[in-house]
Each structure stands twice: as structure tokens, then as C-alpha cells.
């Protein structure tokens, strides 16, 4: 992946988060504090602004840089998690093919989330969207499938994961105080995770 594409991806996610800001505020506000829309917009705006004119050759380094900027700009739960994801994903990104790069990026991304959040799949978090997505990418890369198709599979797996969060009981963050009341609702962090996947796909589809 060249760093120009990485730049475009960050920019595209920024656009999506800006468009979806009110929606994220609303769903986070149901049981959380409603800051998720603001956090995601802030994080990706800061990252996009920072890397816009930066002359970084390596896409992985660029994602790492984006993560570091997000950590400063939006140090809330999801801001820190996503920042960690980009830092770890960028660091771990390697492979011969684009699909391979995407697979290693998201696998490291999810590992970073789990370590930082002391969390695992099934706990109604962003991980429930991104973990199946990373698995789908790994499978696609193994099968030698192209990046667009691989990301389509990842997005669809992420959406299924998001849907599955409805039946989970929250274990982390403010919403965990509501326990069973959180059943039936999608996890807002997982929703943001799906938006990140969409950002990747949109750029590869261009």
C-alpha cells in the first residue's frame, strides 16, 4: 500500500465520522455519555490534518503517526483505543499483497485493542466488529483474493459482528453499569468500527 492511499483512507474515515457524528452521539447517548460522535470526529480530523502534508513514504508509518495524533487529540476510551489500533496496526502491517497488508494491519489493530482494553470478543465492544473483520481479511489473503473483495468480506463480517453485539451484555465502559438494559442495542463502538472498515473499502474501490 502506498502512503497516498493511507492518507486518503484517513481522510475518508474523517468524512464518514463527520457525517455520522450526530448518529454516534445519539447511540452513545442512550446509555453512555454521548461523546462518541465528538471523539471520533476529533480524532480523525486531527489525524487527517496532521498527515495531510507530511512526507511519509511508508503507509504503516503514516498510520502509526495518525494513531499518535489521535491519542493526543481524543484521549477518551474510544479515542485511545482507535489510536492504539492505528499505532499497532501500522507497526504490524507487512505482506506481499495488499490483502496481506490489510490482514496484518487489522490483526495487529485488534490485538492492540484487546491488550489496551483488557478485553476480548463477546464483551460488546468495537472488538466484536473488528475481530471477525480481521479474520475475514486473513482468510481472503490466504486465498489470494484482491483487496476490494477482501475488504467487502471484512465489512460484511464486521456488520454481522455489530449485529451480534445486540445480544451481548456490556462488560466495559459506562454502558456496563446498565448491564442487562444494554441488551438489544448495538454497541456504539462497534458501529464506529464498521465505519472504519467502510473508509478502507471506499478508498480501495475508487
Amino acid at each position, binding site marked *: 500500500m502506498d502512503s497516498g492511499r493511507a492518507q486518503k483512507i484517513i481522510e475518508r474515515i474523517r468524512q464518514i465520522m463527520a457525517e455520522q457524528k450526530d448518529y454516534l452521539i445519539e447511540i452513545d447517548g442512550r446509555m453512555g*455519555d*454521548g*461523546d462518541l460522535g465528538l471523539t471520533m470526529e476529533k480524532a480523525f480530523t486531527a489525524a487527517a490534518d496532521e498527515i495531510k502534508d507530511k512526507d511519509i513514504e511508508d503507509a504503516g508509518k503514516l498510520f502509526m503517526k495518525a494513531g499518535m495524533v489521535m*491519542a*493526543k487529540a481524543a*484521549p*477518551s*476510551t474510544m*479515542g*485511545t*483505543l482507535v489510536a*492504539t489500533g492505528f499505532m499497532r496496526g501500522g507497526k504490524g502491517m507487512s505482506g506481499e499483497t495488499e490483502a496481506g497488508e490489510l490482514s496484518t494491519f487489522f490483526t495487529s489493530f485488534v490485538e492492540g485493542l484487546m491488550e*489496551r*482494553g*483488557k478485553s476480548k470478543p463477546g464483551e460488546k465492544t468495537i472488538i466484536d466488529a473488528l475481530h471477525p473483520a480481521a479474520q475475514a481479511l486473513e482468510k481472503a489473503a490466504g486465498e489470494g483474493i484482491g483487496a476490494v473483495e477482501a475488504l467487502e468480506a471484512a465489512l460484511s463480517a464486521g456488520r454481522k459482528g455489530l449485529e451480534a453485539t445486540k445480544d451481548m451484555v456490556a462488560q*466495559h*465502559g*459506562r454502558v*456496563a*453499569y*446498565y448491564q442487562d438494559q444494554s441488551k438489544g442495542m448495538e454497541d456504539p463502538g462497534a458501529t464506529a468500527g464498521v465505519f472504519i472498515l467502510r473508509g478502507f473499502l471506499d478508498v480501495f474501490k475508487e
Partner: protein
Amino acid sequence: MKKFLNKPENFVDEFLEGILIAHPDKLEHVQDDLRCIVTKNKQPGRVAIATGGGSGHLPLFLGYVGDGVIDGCSVGGVFQSPSAEQMYNVTKHIDNGAGVLYLYGNYGGDIMNFDMAAEMADMDDIRVESFIAADDVASAPKGEEGKRRGVAGIFFLYKVAGAKADKKASLDEVKAVVEKAASGTRTMGVALTPCIVPEVGKPSFQLGENEMEIGMGIHGEPGIRRGEIRPADEVVDEMMEAIVADLPYKSGDEVSVLINGLGATPKEELYLVNRRVAQFLKEKEMTVYRTFVDEFAASLEMAGFSISLMKMDGELKELIDAPANTPFYAQHSCNN
């Protein structure tokens, strides 16, 4: 929204400026970042104690930076975590060569950022230990203590940690005494009205004209029971039953008491509450060592209060009674 504000987005930096101007002998900020507040009185060789968290809880968290208590604090937006980098910058500044204890409340964003800061400090060979305060009985059932929120009881932990560090104790010793103090500390709160985050501009929850919520968190997290306001003594009894049963505190125990105002509740009411707390403890045959009544961990202009108990022993008594001198909390030695 009835508040004294300029632009809501400048709220935090403007009040921080006001604090630094008011206490020029005691506090300074690190580099160009107003949100990294540290003591001016560095003490070579002393274990340093760092805290941090969202704004909106003054005197928490930065108010306890000063002599005899803690050394530095990173300050987030209202109810938002500061960044790992800010925590790291505070850490570097306050380290006196004896290591740094991170002592903060159990909130996801804070934990992740303090963990990241600790990793950064580790790369600088600064030894960091962490202790996460989680004293709010109402926020998770017994057996799941690790999920509980940290609230006003952290004042006791700061006080004990600072006094222990003043005795030139090692980082492990300071952490150990904090662990002991925390293991005997429990809190529960009750709210009558919500507060408004300046940048949000409207209350994050609603309580009816005659409603209170017992167990509510300091960011308006849900409590254990919402219902009609009852006479103060009944409210206190309900809270005390839950607190005392949790540890449990038993007949013969000696405790210190902290009655914490959440913002709008007058001191008169806090002391009226303390009257019943003392009666309750007496009925259960416990004795009160020290009583602290004031705002220690507020939630902007929320009306309500919390009660904290800390089980005392000889060491904790000595540490609680040691002098302190911070912008928001001063105590002479053997103060009561």
C-alpha cells in the same frame, strides 16, 4: 444553562489559568501545557504520586497537588481523560528518582491512558506502579469490586499515600499502604439534580421534582434506586446499610468518615447528614476516628452527597493526621 462561562470550549483552560494565578507559590504547569499541573516543591528522593482524570470534579484531581499529598496531575476535558502523553509529561517532571505511583479512578479512558503513559515512562527507566481506586459500592455488586467506579474515597488514598511518601517510604511501601487503605474504604452517593457539561449545554439526565437517585456516579452514571426524596436520616440509613454491609464494617471497628458534597448541596446539609452517620455508627458500635465534611470530589453543580468510610489502624491514623498543604486542602498535623 446558568453558568459563569466565556466560550464553553475554553472552560478548562480558563479555570486552570485562574488556579495557577491564585496559587503561584504552590503550583506550576509542565512546559507549555496548562493541563499538566505539578507541585513547585519537588522533594528529592521522595516517591512521587501522580493522578489525573476529567475536569469538573474540583477539588479532584489537581486540588491535592501540594505538600504532604500528591505531586502532579494531568487534567482532561470535562469528564474526559487526559492524554497518555500529558500523563507521561507529568510523570517525567515529578519523578524524584524514587519512582512514581499512579493513583486514579476506575474509568476506562483513564486506565488505558495511564497504561500507555506507564509504558512511555518505562522506556525512560522511570519505575511506575499503578493503583486504581474503585470505592463506589453502588457501581458493581460484591465479588465484582474490580468493576467499581472510583469516587470520593480517593481523597483518603491520596492523603495516606502522600503522608507515607513523606516518610521516605519506597514505592512498594507507598503502594502497599494505599492497597491497605483502599481495601477498607467504601463510598456511596446520592443525587438530587444533574449537572451540565459546558460544551454539551444540557443536563445528561433528568430527575423528577421530588426524585433522588441513590448510588448515582459522579458523571451521572445510574445508581441502584431512584425514588421519592425521603427525610435525610432515612436516606443516610439506606446508604449506610449498604456501605457497612459491603466490607463488612463491624462492631468494634474504628473508621474515618468523609461526607462529600457533589457541588450544590450546602455545607449545612452535609453536616446534618454527618449527624445521622455518626448516630448510625454509634448504634452499630463503631467509633469515628476523624470526620471530613466538605466538597472533595464534586460533579460541577450537581446537588447530592456521598458518604465514605475508611477502616483505621495505627499506621493509617498516623498518616491521616500528618500535615498537608495544598491549594484546596490544608491540614495541620493531628488536625481534626
